């Protein structure tokens, strides 16, 4: 009896304690979540415009990472944090979900495949498209053994910060480094700073030195950063720095220009809500190596820019930074309510579902497309005829800001510098329409398991194959070294002997999978992993007078027209594979015989018109003759006397 009561009391106590713990936990969570909820629900001062079209003047205090105000006489002087400084009036969390920052967010709609981050390394014959977004054909950075921090160090230079730069490292070894370097916050000023002294190129330099915490402030023009967090020991504390053992090492530091702080120790920023186009160009420039004349002055800008528009006139967003990408069909996956009317058709033709006429925005001319049969609009994107370089017999090497670090100090200006991006390739995209694309042939060492190819972690490749590939002479141009079949065979054998590699070692290059057969000889076969990655070209848009088809149908429908029959270069580190070419139709869902026959039919097109017109003339003459005869009969009948 007593035992029972005893048990009962203890059970009650247990229950009470459990309930108490639960209630305490819930309350604690609520308290902790309160600021987040308040931020999510309550709009901040700068989240919503009051309707004035005038620019908002930004004279604001600078705040550190911890939210403390910065004064010019602080010691140590800390870099201002965008999260804190801009976040005072703008919801940083909401902005952080925007297109430029949400790649690692699994819930973000990936939309149409876009430009990946291309990891290239001439030494190991590697060129592989990476993306946190689930774009088919790309690999996740972690598949190549890159932590978010390593990814940021490699690719952060041409981002506006945020995204992977703010992810926590999964490696214990990196946690201390993360404390030293800080995280790469969103650099709002990458885009919104209209100060001509803003130096986005320095962002790359700071990131290379792992000065993530200092990078944003260093670019602004009001401050300069020195030193290198990369050289600091794991125990280095930037807030309370101890003297360094090695006097040659320079700790990361920031210095603000004299006179930027006003009497309240506030700072003026020349902020533009409408981002200047040259800020976009830092990450979104293209250089088509069509000929030797690649200088900026000898090429034209996008016709929209020439017409006086800026990038953000079409690529708009609100506080959520859910920027319109501008492709056809985006409205079905985008939450941006003007996505549909911001596409080519949206401005030039008008959004058909709109209750009001919306065509002609920005004075966009409504195209007549004389002589272009309507079927073209069902099978081609607008960009197919209007964007990218005019197609030649051969595709051309193309350099992009993000792939080739254009605009940074010490960039390799060689035309052959890796990665080898090829364009324009007229390929069928996801919606079934043909569009011009940029293309990348993947090249990497991997392992084949259950029919799937998984890349071998890049660090492991370097370590395992270091000696095997040691004799390859690296070129100053940044081009591929001269890989031979022997190098591939040797590399595969070395990988096979390494126990850390699971599955069959393979090397992907030139659109082929290379592996060793049972006899140890190199065999080459097709595989999905060797397929090239393509992403659509949207800009530069050419004027109507330079669109495909402007001269005649044979711009595309000739038996040798590059649109269908042009050569697409196959890129490979392996010398013997570099002569291979694909045809443009290999990337289009079309029947080659039909394409050729159809193109050939245009030889007879003028005859057909002549025959049809002559036939019409004869028919009209016969008709006229008998109409006249009938008239004569009527006239005769009516003219007869009684």
């Amino acid at each position, binding site marked *: 009896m007593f035992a029972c009561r005893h048990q009962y009391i203890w059970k009650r106590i247990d229950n009470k304690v459990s309930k108490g713990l639960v209630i305490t936990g819930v309350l604690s969570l609520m308290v902790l979540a309160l600021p987040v909820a308040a931020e999510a629900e309550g709009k901040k001062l700068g989240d919503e415009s009051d309707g004035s079209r005038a620019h908002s003047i930004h004279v604001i205090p600078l705040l550190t990472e911890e939210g403390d105000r910065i004064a010019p006489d602080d010691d140590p002087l800390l870099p201002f944090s965008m999260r804190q400084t801009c976040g005072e009036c703008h919801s940083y969390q909401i902005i952080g979900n925007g297109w430029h920052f949400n790649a690692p967010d699994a819930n973000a709609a990936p939309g149409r495949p876009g430009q990946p981050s291309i990891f290239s390394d001439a030494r190991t014959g590697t060129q592989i498209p990476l993306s946190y977004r689930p774009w088919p054909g790309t690999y996740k950075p972690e598949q190549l053994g890159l932590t978010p921090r390593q990814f940021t160090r490699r690719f952060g230079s041409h981002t506006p910060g945020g995204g992977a730069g703010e992810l926590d490292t999964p490696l214990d070894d990196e946690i201390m480094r993360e404390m030293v370097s800080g995280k790469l916050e969103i650099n709002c000023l990458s885009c919104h700073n209209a100060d001509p002294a803003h130096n986005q190129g320095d962002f790359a330099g700071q990131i290379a030195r792992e000065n993530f915490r200092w990078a944003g402030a260093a670019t602004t023009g009001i401050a300069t950063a020195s030193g290198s967090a990369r050289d600091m020991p794991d125990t280095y504390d930037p807030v309370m720095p101890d003297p360094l053992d090695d006097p040659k090492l320079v700790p990361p530091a920031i210095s603000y220009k004299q006179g930027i702080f006003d009497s309240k120790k506030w700072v003026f920023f020349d902020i533009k809500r409408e981002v200047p186009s040259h800020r976009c160009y830092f990450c979104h420039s293209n250089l088509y190596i069509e000929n030797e004349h690649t200088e900026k002055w000898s090429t034209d800008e996008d016709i929209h820019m020439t017409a006086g528009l800026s990038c953000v006139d079409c690529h708009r967003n609100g506080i959520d930074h859910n920027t319109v990408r501008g492709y056809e069909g985006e409205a079905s996956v985008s939450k941006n309510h003007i996505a549909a009317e911001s596409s080519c058709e949206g401005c030039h033709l008008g959004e058909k579902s709109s209750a009001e006429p919306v065509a002609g925005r920005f004075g966009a001319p409504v195209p007549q497309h*004389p002589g272009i049969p*309507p*079927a073209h609009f069902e099978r081609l994107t607008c960009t197919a005829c209007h964007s990218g370089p005019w197609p030649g017999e051969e595709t051309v090497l193309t350099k992009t800001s993000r792939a080739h670090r254009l605009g940074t100090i010490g960039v390799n200006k060689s035309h052959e510098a890796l990665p080898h991006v090829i364009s324009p390739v007229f390929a069928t995209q996801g919606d079934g329409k043909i569009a011009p694309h940029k293309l990348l042939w993947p090249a990497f060492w991997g392992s084949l398991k259950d029919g799937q190819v998984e890349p071998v972690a890049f660090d492991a490749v370097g370590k395992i194959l270091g000696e095997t590939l040691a004799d390859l002479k690296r070129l100053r141009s940044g081009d591929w070294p001269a890989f031979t079949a022997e190098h591939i065979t040797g590399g595969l054998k070395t990988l096979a002997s390494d126990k850390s590699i699971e599955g069959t070692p393979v090397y992907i290059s030139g659109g082929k999978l290379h592996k060793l057969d049972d006899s140890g000889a190199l065999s080459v076969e097709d595989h999905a992993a060797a397929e090239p990655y393509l992403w659509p070209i949207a800009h530069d848009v050419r004027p109507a007078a330079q669109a495909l088809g402007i001269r005649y149908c044979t711009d595309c429908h000739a038996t040798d027209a590059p649109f269908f029959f042009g050569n697409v270069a196959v890129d490979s580190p392996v010398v013997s594979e570099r002569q291979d070419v694909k045809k443009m139709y290999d990337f289009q869902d079309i029947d080659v015989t039909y394409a050729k026959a159809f193109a050939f039919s245009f030889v007879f097109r003028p005859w057909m*018109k002549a025959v*049809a017109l002559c*036939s019409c003339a*004869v028919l009209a003459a016969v008709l006229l*003759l*008998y109409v006249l005869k009938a008239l004569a009969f009527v006239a005769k*009948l009516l003219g007869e006397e009684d």
Partner: protein
Amino acid sequence: MFKIITIVGFAVTLAGIVLHRLISPSGPRKAKKTQSDKGKSSLLLVLRRLVYLLALLSFVVLVITGFYPLLVLGEHISGYLVMLHATFAPVFAVCLAVLALMWADKCRIDYNEYPVMRRIVRLLTGTKAADEEAPCKNSGPGQKIAFWLIILLALPLILSIVVILLGYSGTHQQEWFLAAHRYIALVFSLIAIIHTYLLTRMQAR
């Protein structure tokens, strides 16, 4: 919409032909060869027949390639079908022009063949006018009307495409011309079927 109109159009026409066949099993008697016909070279007659057969073949190909994708596949003509269509279209146009020259006189409309017209003329003029030219008995009145309608419709049918090919019309004009081509082609085809039916009926006698 066009699909429904097409199906209804073909169904009504074929039903009409079947009904006509049932109501009037024996067709009009074919006229005996006149002296002038006998004088014509047999080569010309063979040529006329060949042209007609070629026109008929082209017509069948054009109807199939034109209406099959629309009625069966539910899409506009494309691919090999459009090439086939474009190949046979000029052949058909030429045949039509030649047939127009060869048959026009044979198919001239004699108002005496049409009692209604005769009555109207008599009402208007009060005369009993008769055509000085000998009435053509080689073709029935329905066949003649069908023939002239075919010639009349052939012009917009061909020109609606030629205008597009000439490359001066914009997207919306082209869409309009294509729609016009489709509807005219439908009416043209129905009349051509009727004409062929009437012709074969007469030939069968």
